[in-house]
């Protein structure tokens, strides 16, 4: 222990000497340490004469009275919005001034998503697909953020961001194919419904383990930064997933490694049945940003323009400045968590109704459009009919399709087919042929 102190003292003397009188007989390696060690920049020089803390891990002032820091120094992080609940622009300078065409596209994508959700939710109830998760109430977060990105930006999603993919142009047929796990599913029928992915649309395939995409998004953003082609990464996650260790890892890595990355947290009030007050004690997810040295904002997720503006600016700065941004979009999960959940067991119908009837992102945008006479009853009726038809057609087509060919059970485990997988595949086919009365191979692609 004494030796530790001894060396420590030596080190301090060394640094002092380097600063004051470099000619002293300090060991060479200690002198160098202050400036460079194997190319690594070191902490700021020590200065014991100044009455300022010199600890390498923090820079601030000394204080002489005992005081704990209160968690919520300000009365909560404010919620940025552009429109009020009636769809009126509050501060004209914040109006993104999107064209009529763009706004109508927002609206149609939000409502198409809604229609697809209804039909797929129902189809699960009827036993046609195995599982489903709706996006009700969160349409504004999806479309507003997706519209603010470049198509080349890479998306790492959680599972409740189907609208992002829809905005990018993923066809209804492929949504359906995935949910039906039919032969057209790009994922080859290997995952539960809603685990979409598209290489062409730069949307990384969803995986079930929560929050794992968060540090991955940091790595991808780092690689894109090195490519220097002005691309960013956006990473979506729920406020529940934000409690995972991987979320911490992703925040800290992206901040320290200066990654052009937008963290987009959908704070929808629940993680299955767990309400936010049992999920965290601080001021939501945005409050964590400063702790990681990260730019952060909280937005009204039911205001598609607020989401758009925040994402657009975060995206611009993330790429220009190579740093991550954290957006916490406040919203509400109007549907059950999934088809395996009945939310009446843990929340009131009144609560759900409030969000559905009084503060819905789709109605807010509708108000905005109506006020400009861009959209009336007639357009609404025609669009409803048309969108329902589009979804039903895709749905029926998907249902009729064959299932993926059974050989696909064994491919893509490795890039190449390994000998033992080849053997397993042969064994499977021998088994299937031997007991063919139990295996309806006609339903499967050849």
């Amino acid at each position, binding site marked *: 222990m004494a030796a*530790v102190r001894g060396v420590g003292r030596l080190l301090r003397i060394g640094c002092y000497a380097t600063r004051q009188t470099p000619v002293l007989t300090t060991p060479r390696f200690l002198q160098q340490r202050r400036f460079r060690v194997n*190319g*690594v920049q070191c902490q700021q020089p020590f200065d014991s004469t100044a009455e300022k803390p010199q600890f390498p891990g923090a820079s601030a002032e000394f204080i002489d009275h005992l005081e704990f820091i209160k968690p919520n120094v300000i009365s909560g992080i404010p919620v940025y919005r552009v429109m009020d609940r009636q769809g009126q622009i509050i501060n004209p300078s914040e109006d993104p001034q999107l064209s009529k065409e763009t706004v109508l596209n927002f609206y149609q994508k939000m409502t198409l998503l809604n229609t697809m959700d209804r039909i797929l939710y129902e189809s699960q109830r009827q036993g046609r697909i195995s599982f489903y998760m709706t996006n009700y109430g969160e349409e504004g977060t999806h479309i507003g953020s997706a519209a603010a990105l470049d198509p080349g930006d890479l998306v790492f999603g959680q599972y409740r961001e189907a609208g992002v993919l829809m905005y990018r142009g993923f066809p209804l047929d492929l949504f359906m194919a995935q949910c039906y796990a039919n032969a057209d599913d790009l994922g080859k029928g290997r995952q539960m419904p809603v685990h979409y992915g598209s290489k062409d649309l730069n949307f990384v395939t969803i995986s079930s383990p929560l929050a794992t995409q968060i540090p991955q998004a940091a*790595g991808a953003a780092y*690689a894109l930064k090195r*490519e220097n082609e002005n691309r960013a990464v956006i990473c979506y996650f729920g406020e529940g997933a934000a409690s995972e260790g991987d979320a911490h890892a992703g925040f800290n890595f992206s901040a320290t*490694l200066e990654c052009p990355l937008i963290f987009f947290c959908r704070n929808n009030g629940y993680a299955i049945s767990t309400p936010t007050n049992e999920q965290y004690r601080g001021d939501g997810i945005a409050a964590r940003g400063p702790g990681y040295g990260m730019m952060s904002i909280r937005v009204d997720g039911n205001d598609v323009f607020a989401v758009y503006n925040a994402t657009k600016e975060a995206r611009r700065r993330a790429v220009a400045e190579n740093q991550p941004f954290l957006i916490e979009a406040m919203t509400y999960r109007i549907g059950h968590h999934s088809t395996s959940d009945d939310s009446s067991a843990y929340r009131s119908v009144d609560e759900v109704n409030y969000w559905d009837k009084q503060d819905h992102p789709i109605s807010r945008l509708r108000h905005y459009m109506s006020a400009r006479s861009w959209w009336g009853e007639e357009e609404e009726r025609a669009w409803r009919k048309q969108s329902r038809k589009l979804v039903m057609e895709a749905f029926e087509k998907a249902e009729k399709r064959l299932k993926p060919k059974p050989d696909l059970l064994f491919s893509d485990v490795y890039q190449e087919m390994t000998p033992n997988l080849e053997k397993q595949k042969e064994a499977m086919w021998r088994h299937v042929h031997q007991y063919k009365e139990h295996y309806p191979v006609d339903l499967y692609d050849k």
Partner: protein
Amino acid sequence: MAAAARFLLRSASSKGAVSNVSGGVHSCLGVSLVKLYPSGSSTSKSQRRNVSHFTFQPDPETTKYGPTQKMNLFQSVTSALDNTLATDPTAVIFGEDVAFGGVFRCTVGLRDKYGKDRVFNTPLCEQGIVGFGIGVAVAGATAIAEIQFADYIYPAFDQIVNEAAKYRYRSGNLFNCGNLTIRAPWGCVGHGSLYHSQSPEAFFAHCPGIKIAIPRGPVQAKGLLLSCIADQNPCIFFEPKILYRAAVDQVPTEPYTIPLSQAEILQEGSDVTLVAWGTQVHVMREVATMAQEKLGVSCELIDLQTILPWDTDTVCKFDSAQKAVK
């Protein structure tokens, strides 16, 4: 010894119960650990007594891949990484303390040579290191992640088993992280005790989608590591840390690969088949000699080299299996 150095680092500040303080502090300063390894004269008799016994047997020199140089195992790892950074501009190397050369010196000089955006420290978080590496690979770049000790790979278990291993499969081959290689110092040295000695390959050996390789010496280390890096599947490369300095071979300076999933028969034999990997290959060499001398038993010795997917053909080939039955 580096294990101890690192170990000391962690305990030095809090407990002070250390015997080789200067070692810890020196490493803290970023000064090479070269002096501190067991091959040096600083190792006392009492320390040596606890080191598990084996005699490293170098591989015969091969000129197949051009000029060779005398390298120990950590230097052959550095050489492989150097070759990779030189030929693949997307390649990045990262982990805890890799910037100054790594606590085992495997990345010495690489940052100066290739830049700080390519050889860099990460925060101290193994799940983050592997998750980050997966993301780098998914974006199309080559990721070489270092876990400082195999003992500390468990926080990254989910990222390895649920993510890396399944990326290609679950996306129907739309996305993959085949460009990811995870390196970790592995196995015992003799003084690492409970948490600087583990050999966790069995936990990963039943996970389809990843490959695992463990070399027995410097020549294999470089060839297998370069294979792992080139392989289009995520790989874990465990480096026997006792061999970092104890093992010296004539290693080709140019890049070369040793195929994965191929075991190597090191010694023919007719009675029993011995299968080993990493450090244990050298133990088995001695065992085979002893068995011959003391029991008159003829042993075939196989270095498995790749733990997953392993070379069943070589290990279970008809005559080997027959020998094993005997």
